[in-house]
């Protein structure tokens, strides 16, 4: 097997630079600070992520940031299974942190990446994940500028854990926060819900549906950036991750101290996801997403916001799903298809499939 030299740039799709026949699995030595760890970092991580800052070989990345307000966030990723239709833990690790920056109204610039690898993780899996990370970073227009690698004993981890921290810059004067939410605001979602959670569940539980459900994992910063650049007055943004739409609405309602109502018939859910949820007794409003967000904005900006969003691949199915309708309240309600209002509460723990 050819092993590219250190000076050769690794392109996605090339063979794994760590010789798989010699090192088919991650060893403790790959985190031991010695030659093997050096080889892993140099030939795989630094060669693939290939930012100038990484090749400064400092303990910290030296960054030049324009004199603006910056946004800073961190998140850790522990998903099982590591690979799933529509993505893997690597794409999550990039897009999740990029999206947190986007929800603060920032343009993401730089990411750090910390790997905790379990001894015995197949090297081919790590290589696939690393390539996905670089592709996701390119798609999100961010550079990976610093990182860390640790290896833990077999059976003490779950294959791989990843932490990413991100820096973005604020290039507008708007204040985007729950406290800006006003009675009368419209609530827009950028697309159909429940894809990521059901994709994960299908793989994790070995459920094979006739149609493969794919994760919606995607970077949202370009879409939110367009809304801000076009002057849309945005009061609040929130990406819909664990706990789904219902949890995000409850978080905002509690933080903003405003009551919210949505219409269930307006919430887009793909047929395959709706059917999978029905089979398992799950509510799509509570299922995880990784490429979906809600925006709170004045009602008279909604139409223009939808026009802008629908021109972007990640906003083609954007729609208004409800509004903020009550002062001094933290209640989220939903109007059912039968026209009856019900509470859309914060879920306690995780949704569990029903017995019968």
């Amino acid at each position, binding site marked *: 097997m050819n092993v590219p030299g250190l000076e050769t740039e690794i392109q996605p799709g090339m063979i794994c630079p760590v010789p798989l026949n010699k090192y088919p699995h991650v060893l403790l030595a790959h985190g031991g600070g010695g030659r093997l760890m050096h080889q892993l970092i140099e030939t795989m991580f630094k060669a693939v992520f290939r930012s100038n800052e990484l090749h400064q070989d400092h303990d910290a990345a030296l960054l030049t940031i324009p004199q603006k307000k910056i946004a800073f966030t961190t998140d850790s990723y522990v998903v099982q299974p590591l690979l799933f239709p529509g993505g893997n833990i690597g794409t999550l690790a990039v897009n999740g942190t990029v999206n947190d920056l986007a929800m603060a109204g920032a343009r993401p610039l730089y990411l750090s990446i910390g790997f905790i690898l379990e001894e015995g993780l197949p090297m081919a899996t790590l290589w696939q994940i690393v390539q996905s990370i670089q592709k996701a970073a390119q798609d999100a227009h961010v550079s990976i500028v610093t990182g860390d690698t640790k290896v833990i004993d077999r059976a003490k981890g779950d294959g791989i854990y990843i932490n990413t921290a991100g820096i973005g810059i604020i290039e507008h004067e708007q204040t985007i926060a729950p406290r800006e939410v006003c009675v009368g605001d419209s609530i827009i979602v950028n697309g159909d819900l429940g894809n990521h959670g059901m994709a994960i569940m299908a793989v994790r539980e070995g459920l094979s549906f006739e149609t493969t459900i794919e994760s919606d994992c995607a970077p949202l910063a370009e879409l939110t950036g367009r809304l801000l650049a076009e002057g849309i007055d945005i009061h609040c943004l929130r990406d819909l991750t664990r706990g789904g739409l219902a949890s995000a609405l409850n978080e905002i309602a509690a933080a903003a101290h405003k009551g919210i109502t949505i219409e269930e018939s307006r919430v887009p859910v793909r047929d395959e996801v709706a059917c999978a949820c029905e089979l398992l007794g799950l509510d799509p409003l509570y299922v995880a997403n990784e490429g979906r967000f809600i925006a709170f904005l004045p009602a008279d900006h909604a139409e223009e916001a939808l026009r802008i969003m629908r021109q972007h691949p990640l906003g083609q199915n954007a729609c208004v799903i409800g509004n903020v309708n009550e002062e001094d309240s933290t209640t989220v309600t939903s109007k059912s298809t*039968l026209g009856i209002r*019900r509470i859309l509460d914060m879920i306690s723990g995780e949704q*569990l499939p029903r017995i*019968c």
Partner: protein
Amino acid sequence: MKYLHEYRDPALATRLSREIHRITTRPHVLMEVCGGQTHAIVKYGIDELLPESIELVHGPGCPVCVTPLELIDKAIAIASRPDVIFCSFGDMLRVPGSGDDLLSVKARGGDIRMVYSPLDAVAIAQKNPQKEIVFFAVGFETTAPANAMAVVQAKQLNLRNFSVLVSHVLVPPAMEAILSSPHNRVEGFLAAGHVCTIMGYTEYGPIASTYKVPIVVTGFEPLDILQGVYMCVRQLEEGRAEVENQYTRSVHKHGNRYAQNTIRDVFCIIPRKWRGVGEIAHSGLGLQTDYQAFDAEKRFDVTQCQTNESDECVSGLILQGLKKPHECPAFAVTCTPDHPLGATMVSSEGACAAYYRYRKHNAQTGVLNA
């Protein structure tokens, strides 16, 4: 035809609602038996589409809710053993026993696995010959055939490391227990559609004629429940007490004979204690003699645990339809999904959890808010 949106059509729901209003001339108290029906009623607000004179009370058809506390304590004791892989359906994992629940045991290192089918537990037993695999066999008649099949398969595979902790209950004896109670107010039943898919509905004829109550086998979608209510009210208004089948797309009169035979081969009818209700004769399923080797209660030396029911919890009255969740002083105050006092708040099928999730009780005004 996806059997989803068609049965949630708002225009048809409105028509059924109008028809129910039109034929109702006096108050009626109906009970829906199944927890899944309770969930749908509260989620879709179906009771708000009915005349005020029709009261829906929620029955004991939540197998999670009626599993006795002692059995949950035994499950926790077995699951805590280092040599055991304990398999269960999802909603049992959060039900508190006297002091703990299965999820807490998992956090402490217990090997507890959620499965979607009891056959998954059999597969786990085959893959882990050095461990004891125990499946928590909970449910009404609906899940009994699959649980029976798991035991049959385990026997055919000669698995020595597989057993089941059985907590099966039967619907008709529970309905009779409710009807023979001196406090009973129920005048008609929406029978559990999936139970009847397995068992058919011939066993309800004697109940209907003895107690003079209409019994309508009903499905779970909004239009099913509205049509079931309509059929039940129509009988009451006409002075009839018969068994009718609303859920014809799933239920046949004699049910699924193959499933019934499988149940009969593996299980026999035994008395069973219902949490909050007490022991009801001939109301449970236990393993037949030929399958006693797979009985987890016999296999594991789980001594009688000290069971401590909450004094505040009135689950029993709720399961019998004698109280509504918001009439409990602890509801949404000391008893919430995060801190449940009893099973009707923990299980997603429980009446208290459904009321808490989809409605909120304003403790000060006594009004349900939604």
